[in-house]
């Protein structure tokens, strides 16, 4: 028998002896499960050697390219994150105030939230989008769960639908936010599109929209941007919304609203919620994903909510219990910080009022940028009708520029935007509008 060793080789010997005890034979079976790492052994390949680089997210990729550019006149019009007139990100005053209040409250703890999140936050979020006096709330017909911003709310809603809804197809507008199809596909839904944007008018293809929704199978899910359509900025009028509502209800199409810009589009929280409220007022059911990323400037804190409006309170309660089963294996319970800030602001009437003022200021600045850009292009005599710049609404303008023109603008003028010609108006300032106008003018006149 071996006596006590302390050298590393004896430790290896001990391990070998132990191995021999446990292995019937010394031979190793062929590694059928790991066909991709043929040289496995002591210094074996990773079992994930075959993993290829994922294509870069096109929107986030814009910022990456922008960051690399050393030009002093570079302009980032890619990601839809608000910037001040000085080109800086903005933390709202009311958010700072709320954060400080939370920090100063030494009685606060960091325990796990319930799976559905902060109760106050959920109730207040429902009120915000549905209206404080909405009968659905009074009748307990809506269940609201705290999720991680709009993305997280969409994903949880879609996973629920994939499990419990009889129709696994969702219709998304063409175009839509790049992440939408990926979220729904990974949740287990199949994705189809409906016509939305008309490049010739740079407005809504209303006829195409109605036709496509009419021919969708009954019960299909339909994704609707509540306001400030991303990326086009083209929204239906109220009358058009009413027609859409009637059509959808007559075909029993299930609405899934993505509300990422409430208050940001028109400057009024109630006005920007009208499309959702119209659908809820008719007594029907719908899903609503809310994000506080833009309207509260809480981008990085991932604050959002998913509301499911149901026919009865009993159904809403059962739906909530099933939503928990989606959430628990995804992240167990939602994060406390951002939602606490939102709840603090929403429940205090003074802070709420302050928020509406700061929100309107952001929306107004964007509207002002639209006007300035439109005027600058008109002054330069840039060919084409640019009235869509002021007609479109929200953070983005779908310029109508093609990818060649976009590429030209990046190369010659250091302007960064997504290749579909979408620009974030929030990234503009009075100082930079002339530069952008010059770039657009050059692109349009020199490249087709």
């Amino acid at each position, binding site marked *: 028998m071996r006596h006590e060793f302390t050298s590393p080789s004896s430790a290896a010997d001990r391990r070998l002896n132990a191995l021999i005890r*446990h292995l019937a034979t010394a031979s190793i079976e062929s590694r059928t499960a790991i066909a991709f790492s043929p040289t496995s052994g002591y210094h074996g390949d990773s079992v994930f050697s075959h993993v290829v680089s994922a294509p870069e997210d096109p929107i986030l990729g814009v910022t990456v390219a922008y960051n690399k550019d050393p030009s002093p006149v570079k302009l980032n019009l890619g990601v839809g994150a608000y910037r001040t007139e000085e080109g800086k990100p903005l933390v709202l005053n009311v958010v700072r105030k709320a954060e400080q209040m939370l920090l100063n409250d030494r009685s*606060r703890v960091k325990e796990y939230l319930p799976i559905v999140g902060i109760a106050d936050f959920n109730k207040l979020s429902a009120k915000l989008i549905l209206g404080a006096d909405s009968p659905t709330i009074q009748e307990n017909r809506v269940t609201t769960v705290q999720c991680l911003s709009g993305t997280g709310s969409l994903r949880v809603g879609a996973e629920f639908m994939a499990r419990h809804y009889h129709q696994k197809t969702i219709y998304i507008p063409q175009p839509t936010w790049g*992440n939408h199809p990926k979220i729904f596909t990974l949740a287990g839904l199949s994705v189809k599109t409906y016509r939305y944007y008309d490049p010739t008018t740079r407005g809504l293809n209303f006829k195409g929209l109605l036709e496509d929704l009419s021919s969708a199978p009954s019960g299909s899910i339909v994704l609707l941007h509540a306001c400030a359509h991303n990326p086009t900025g083209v929204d239906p009028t109220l009358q058009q919304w009413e027609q859409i509502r*009637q059509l959808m209800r007559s075909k029993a199409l299930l609405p899934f609203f993505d509300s990422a810009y409430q208050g940001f589009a028109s400057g009024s929280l109630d006005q920007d919620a009208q499309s959702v409220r119209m659908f809820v007022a008719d007594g029907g059911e719908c899903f609503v994903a809310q994000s506080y990323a833009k309207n509260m400037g809480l981008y990085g804190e991932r604050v959002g909510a998913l509301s499911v409006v149901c026919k009865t309170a009993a159904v809403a309660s059962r739906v909530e219990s099933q939503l928990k089963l989606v959430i628990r294996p995804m992240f167990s319970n939602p994060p406390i910080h951002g939602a606490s800030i939102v709840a603090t602001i929403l429940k205090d009437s003074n802070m709420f009022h302050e928020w509406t003022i700061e929100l309107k200021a952001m929306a107004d600045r964007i509207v002002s940028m639209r006007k300035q850009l439109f005027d600058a292009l008109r002054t330069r005599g840039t060919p084409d009708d640019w009235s869509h710049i002021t007609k479109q609404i929200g953070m983005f303008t779908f310029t109508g520029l093609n990818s060649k023109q976009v590429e030209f603008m990046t190369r010659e003028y250091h302007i960064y935007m997504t290749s579909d010609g979408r620009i974030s108006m929030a990234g503009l300032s009075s100082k930079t509008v002339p530069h952008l106008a010059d770039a657009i003018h050059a692109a349009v006149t020199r490249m087709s």
Partner: protein
Amino acid sequence: MMIISRFLRRGISTASTCATRRSWWDHVTPAPKDPIIAVTEAFLADPFPYKINLGVGAYRDDEGKPVVLQCVREAEGKIAASNFLESTSTAVSSKFVEESAKLIYGQDSNVIKERRFAGIPALSGTGACRLFAEFQKRFYPESRIYLPDPTWSNHRNIWRDVHVPDRTFRYYHPDSKSLNFVALMDDIKNAPDGSFFLLHPCAHNPTGVDPTNEQWREISSLFKAKNHFPFFDVAYQGFASGDVERDARAIRIFLEDGHSIGCAQSFAKNMGLYGHRVGCLSVLCNDKIQAMAIKGQLQQISNTMYGSPPIHGISLASKILSDPDIKAIWLKEVKVMATRIHRMRAILREALERLGSPLNWQHITNQVGMFCFSGLNRAEVYLLAKEFHIYMTPDGRISMAGVTTKNVDYLANSIHEVTTCDQDAKILHNTDAYRINTDIRFTSLGASKSRARGMNLSL
């Protein structure tokens, strides 16, 4: 029938055309409650003044109160002072991932120096496991996951939701209340080559039973021979022994042996950041290039689920790990928490032995970490809740963090009562009695026998 309903719909004025008459969700059945969370809910609903919650694994001080660590308060103060902007969030995330990797792999690990790891922040341990499960499904769609028996109840849910089937490997020996090492090695050997295994590197949840370092070395060697993929769920680094380096031993052993592991880290317990959902997923790779590829894939998975985790929690953890003064405070606080738990284990065991319990309670001090797998059966757990207002999960898992010097005697007395008052219970205590729908007779504080069924104590 169809024609009539269609006619009815058309007859409604268009101004109030609403959806079909029924709800689309009528068929949705109420979901079973999460067993761990259900315990806290039952506890909260109980008006008894001396109730004890031994359910969720969240640390409590000796007053039974949740704790916000001082290092966290310091970090919060520093972060609030800085003008926090989105553009710095990438930098903060990267720093956080780097520091987390150093914490688990070692400050001077080659893996870090050579940047041979793909890491992204995750929503605590759950989120990190989920991201890995999705990644595993994507690149090994036919694979399974081997989970220890028993394991944290949510592990099965996570892999199930990504459609990766699970198998179990034997782990806990209910008779000895310790590790069933021979069976464990057998199951590892018998699994097909190249299988994915989930391992708890320390403070196994729910049993508190950990392999010794020597056993870890043997497990690692066998993994090498079988070419298995080791995925570690690190939820309690620092909580087991009080020393973060010591608690990482299993992982360091695997690294020494050249394994390219995956690792889910949670800072919920060891930093007390529960509600902030702070965690990190890392996958070790061959080289830097591959690490970038894998990181991109992981980010994509994350982007389609919720974007990225909230920056506040990441900032806190990053600050704590990277600021030497704050880190020093943290390490002390971790030791304090672990020490209190060790003490409670010792006191509980002594109290039971002093009461003259005929049962063997050694496992209380042998087991490690936040949980004690008491060995209490479902009937006894039920009785403890109903008669003594002491709450734990149906598998008899006690969160030692919920035990204090003030309640330990009451707890010991109660456990003693339910395990000795009744003959049937005593017999059941010595056997594996985890079956659902067991009809059990038991006494109620010496009063007449009442009949109870295994209630909705769903697993």
